[in-house]
């Protein structure tokens, strides 16, 4: 007998599985940095409009996450860290991820245009395109510099927030971009140092896979050095001040010192203590970004230069 009950799948996706397609943890970073970019901009915004603008930027970020999960389902299934994502776990069909990603992209761009301005909306559309097409489809599988260029997509949100308020780009928003852009490679390479097996299995050309850990350690230290001047420079613009400068100076010293420590370690040492220092550096990188943007908020609150 033909019966709809005969078509039981192995499991049914719940609402939470569709939310997981939007990468809520990445979204939280997008929300925070976009909010800071918007809030510290010199043009005040109606609080509710600002709330909506940040929400639509986050939705755009979520949409690109869904597109990434659609395209990368084959890689995600191989890696331990990502095997439980809704598409490789068989909960959500690939087509659903694509449809959700495309629909939310269109919706978020249109709504950001209506809520804030069309420059910010175009910027968001470009960011989604950059992450989904340039990073996910093109660079991730073809070059060990994937993280460097893909990091730009994660660095755009504070610029979009700034554009929502001002309708344009400023040196401050460019420096906030640089802060995230140069922070991304050491952050992900530190992760790759202790997650190397995953990337090797999936065939993703991470720097650790293509050039080895020694080169990766050198790159981490190099980027930490490049990052510091941009972070400090931001403190001398109209959004900076003593609080930001002090926080930034301490964090950059820690980040460079940590990078130096990684550089001097051998793989045998790292394996002997189960990558303790590498894991600590990864945690430090998370604090680094969070505290920089928190310092910008506090500085704005107490008054910038």
């Amino acid at each position, binding site marked *: 007998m033909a019966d709809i009950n005969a078509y039981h799948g192995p499991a*049914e996706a*719940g*609402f939470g599985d*569709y*939310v997981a397609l939007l990468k809520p943890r990445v979204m939280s970073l997008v929300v925070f940095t976009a909010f800071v970019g918007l809030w510290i901009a010199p043009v005040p915004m*109606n609080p509710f*409009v600002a709330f909506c603008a940040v929400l639509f930027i986050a939705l755009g970020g979520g949409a690109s996450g869904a597109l990434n999960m659609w395209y990368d389902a084959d890689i995600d299934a191989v890696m331990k860290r990502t095997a439980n994502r809704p598409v490789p776990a068989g909960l959500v069909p690939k087509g659903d991820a694509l449809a959700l990603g495309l629909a939310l992209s269109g919706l978020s761009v249109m709504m950001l245009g209506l809520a804030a301005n069309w420059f910010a909306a175009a910027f968001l559309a470009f960011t989604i395109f950059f992450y989904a097409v340039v990073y996910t489809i093109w660079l991730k599988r073809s070059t060990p510099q994937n993280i460097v260029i893909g990091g730009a997509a994660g660095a755009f949100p504070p610029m979009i927030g700034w554009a929502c308020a001002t309708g344009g780009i400023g040196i401050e928003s460019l420096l906030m971009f640089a802060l995230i852009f140069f922070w991304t490679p050491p952050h992900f390479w530190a992760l790759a140092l202790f997650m190397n097996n995953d990337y090797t299995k999936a065939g993703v050309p991470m720097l650790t896979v293509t050039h080895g850990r020694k080169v990766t350690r050198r790159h981490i230290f190099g980027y930490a050095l490049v990052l510091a001047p941009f972070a400090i420079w931001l403190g001398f613009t109209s959004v900076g001040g003593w609080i930001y400068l002090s926080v930034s100076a301490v964090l950059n010293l820690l980040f460079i010192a940590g990078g130096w420590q990684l550089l001097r370690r051998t793989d045998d040492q790292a394996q002997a203590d189960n990558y303790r220092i590498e894991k600590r550096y990864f945690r430090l990188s998370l604090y680094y970004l969070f505290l920089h943007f928190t310092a910008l908020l506090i500085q704005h609150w107490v008054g910038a230069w």
Partner: protein
Amino acid sequence: MVMLPRVEHELHKRRRSRNLGLLVVLLAFVALVFGLSIAKITSGDMMEGYDHQPRATMLPADPNPPAPNAAPVAVPGTPGAEAAGTVAKP
């Protein structure tokens, strides 16, 4: 009248969380658009768009507006024509 037993289909039960979630999202979206409209209108934003009818309010402001007429001409028989002193010749 035949009373059919109202048994909930198993499919609906399975998809309950999805359907309820979507309901909440859609209601939140309606509230958001409404709130956005209120916020925009109360802060005095220009709400007019082009609706295929040219209107004077859509024209850009004239940087050199004409000076007000010092000696207005009134149509005969209209209120104020005599008071103004200048009446248009028929």
